[in-house]
């Protein structure tokens, strides 16, 4: 089957997923994107959000906080510093992550300010989506 590709999600501490997927939705830093097989090879950074992989065995959803994705015609690899299966991540933990981001925002220098602001906004948005 040509329309199936390999989807990997790895964090520094473990491999969260290594499955077949037909479409993967990524929260790219330039906007949401859905990747299907035979996609142009791309590397993109990610913003906090939900990675959703649709495959023959169903749908898998993960929450990622920063990272990047490497897309090849037959594979999608997401490298995330922090990633959780959506079901495992509780509201409290996400709020803790939000607080961390806010702390960073408070001490951020001017040039990092934008980044920190966006980080906080994204995580807050994510928190709403998880409701």
């Amino acid at each position, binding site marked *: 089957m040509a329309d199936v590709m390999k989807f990997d999600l790895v964090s*520094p*501490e473990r491999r969260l997923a290594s499955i077949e997927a037909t479409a993967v939705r990524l929260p790219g830093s330039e906007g949401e994107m859905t990747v299907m097989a035979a996609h142009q090879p*791309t*590397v*993109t950074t990610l913003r906090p959000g939900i990675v959703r992989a649709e495959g023959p065995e169903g749908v898998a959803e993960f929450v990622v906080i920063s990272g990047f994705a490497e897309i090849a015609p037959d594979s999608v690899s997401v490298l995330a510093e922090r990633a959780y299966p959506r079901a495992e991540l509780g509201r409290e933990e996400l709020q803790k992550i939000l607080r961390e981001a806010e702390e960073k925002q408070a001490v951020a220098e001017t040039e990092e300010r934008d980044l920190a602001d966006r980080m906080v906004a994204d995580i807050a948005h994510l928190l709403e989506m998880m409701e």
Partner: protein
Amino acid sequence: MPSLKDLKNRIESVKSTRKITKAMQMVAAAKLRRAQEAAEASRPYAERMDSVLGRLARSVGGAQNGPRLLAGTGSDQTHLLVVMTAERGLCGGFNSSIVRLARARIEELEAHGKRVKILTVGRKGREQMKREFADKFVGHVDLQGVRRIGYENADAIARDILARFDAGEFDVATIFFNRFQSVISQIPTMKQIVPFAADDVEGAAEAAAATHYEYEPSAEEILADILPRGVATQIFSALLENAASEQGARMSAMDNATRNAGEMIDKLTILYNRSRQAAITKELIEIISGAEAL
């Protein structure tokens, strides 16, 4: 000649030492398995990180045009050596072998007139190097309270190092750690982490076959975002390798200690039996000669 009571006490004390070393060996074996699993689990991330970084580095057109983390400061006058050792001893030559490698490197660098700064991770390395190189210490990372090394430990160390780099405190950073090969063999290794050094041999072949990648946002921006993570990843794998090596080294050291204790007990037991027999013989002679004298 020690008395029977003394011998008995010694045998008892060696026996309890053997119990302790045996227990430590078993604990180390269990921890080693966990450490190896952790090292195994971290590998896919580190490998991908390496390959993406290598490709990015080439796509921005060689080291000269890249950000400072890739291109370096243009000098190699000041070196930061990050010496990673264990928090605890009783693990054979584990700590000393890292310190020995670092010491050789320091001497080599100084012979070339470079400046050396030292950052230690782990208490043992600090203790061993304190006397000789106290004036070169710039910092120490304590992992004593850490039961399981997580990515955030590595991230904190990386941030510390990168902050120093941004402040212009050094030009080149190298980490020292033990690469885990097997329970009986750990290889002291040094690896340059700043500026980022892509594996050229593998890279060149890959570049020839490489497909053209699109970058979103630009390659430069992604690179600036990912490079610090690359440093953290390298430190993380070094920490994990080190943790596995430490347990491996401790396991074989404790195995030796247990065996030595066993041999010592055997020797002492023979000595004890002989002494006891000698004492019995002596008493018999006394009784018999007493009876004969009557």
